[in-house]
């Protein structure tokens, strides 16, 4: 009885996750991307100290949802990506995010967005993936 209940919870969680967002795989790390998130795959990001510099730069973006992550930004150095949480009403300026990342000393390789909440779009810098 208890086992069936847990199973139902797991199935519902999976379906709910499928409906509200999709995921990508970056260097073996599964990353869920919801409608109000932008994921930047970044090269050159190798230490937590580097992440601090990037965090400082990206926190200058307008329309961040600062209630999420670390003031709207999550950086994973091991898998080399950043998640930017944007407010529900207004989107962040993605070109500005790329520019700020470059100014911090790193290179954006691919931008992942989920504009309608049902399909992840990957944009390679310099062209579509």
């Amino acid at each position: 009885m208890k086992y069936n209940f847990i199973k139902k919870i797991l199935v519902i969680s999976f379906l709910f996750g499928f409906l509200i967002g999709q995921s990508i795989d970056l260097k073996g790390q599964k990353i869920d991307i919801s409608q109000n998130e932008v994921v930047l795959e970044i090269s050159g990001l190798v230490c937590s100290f580097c992440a601090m510099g990037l965090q400082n730069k990206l926190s200058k973006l307008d329309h961040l949802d600062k209630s999420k992550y670390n003031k709207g930004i999550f950086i994973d150095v091991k898998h080399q990506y950043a998640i930017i949480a944007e407010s529900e009403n207004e989107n962040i300026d993605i070109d500005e995010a790329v520019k700020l990342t470059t100014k911090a000393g790193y290179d954006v390789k691919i931008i992942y967005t989920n504009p309608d909440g049902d399909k992840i779009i990957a944009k390679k810098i310099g062209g579509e993936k």
Partner: protein
Amino acid sequence: MARVKTVLLIILTQSSIIIAHQPIMDMAPRWNGGYGIQLRYERFGSDKFINGSNSLNRFLHETMWLEGVFTWTRSKRITFKLPFHQIKNGNEIDNYIGGLILALPLKKYRNFNQHTQNFGITPQLQLPNINSKISDKSQFGGGLSVSYSSESFLFYQLFDIYVWNYSDKDPLLGFDVNLGIHPYHNNSSNSGFFAIWDVTAKWTQGSTTILSGPVLMPYYQNIMARLEIKYPLIENGEYSQFSRGLTINAGIGFVF
């Protein structure tokens, strides 16, 4: 007395190490408009000569370095180092401010999937301290450093070769190697530490010194610390000079 002064002069001219590392660390701050300041304490000395014989006096050289860096862009920076020296030779104590060292590290970065690397060239200038009592202590000098550095999530390496030419002192050639690991990172608190093995070699006319030892570099948010302990593997020279003994460096830096 004349011999003590001669030995002291040799110590001063042979032992003033202009380390190749730039303030804070090779990579911080990398962001445009970033700046940092660091205090570093350095000490070395012994009561032995390099030929192994004992001296009646103990020689100790302590230096407090005030260092700073400003980053225009990640490939263009300016740094300064200002040393405050204290030399104890037996009962004699000498305090003085050394020459200001300005440097312009120019780097070419390349970012890869799993690591980042840079090639650097750094012109340097040592300005004499006009208030110095003895001109030998603070001379005009020019230096040039060529470096390569690579860092991944786990490994760090730096190779640096540099030359210095002084107005009234023999030129110096130096080579520095840092090989290390970066075993702990914490993304959420921006903290971690490096464990590095350092080898420093320098040659001047008739003198060779090779030092080696461990370096620990913990960091937390915008604070970085560096502790080095280096042992003299090779010390030889034409003149009778004091052995350096252990060289200890301890610094703390803040970047913004």
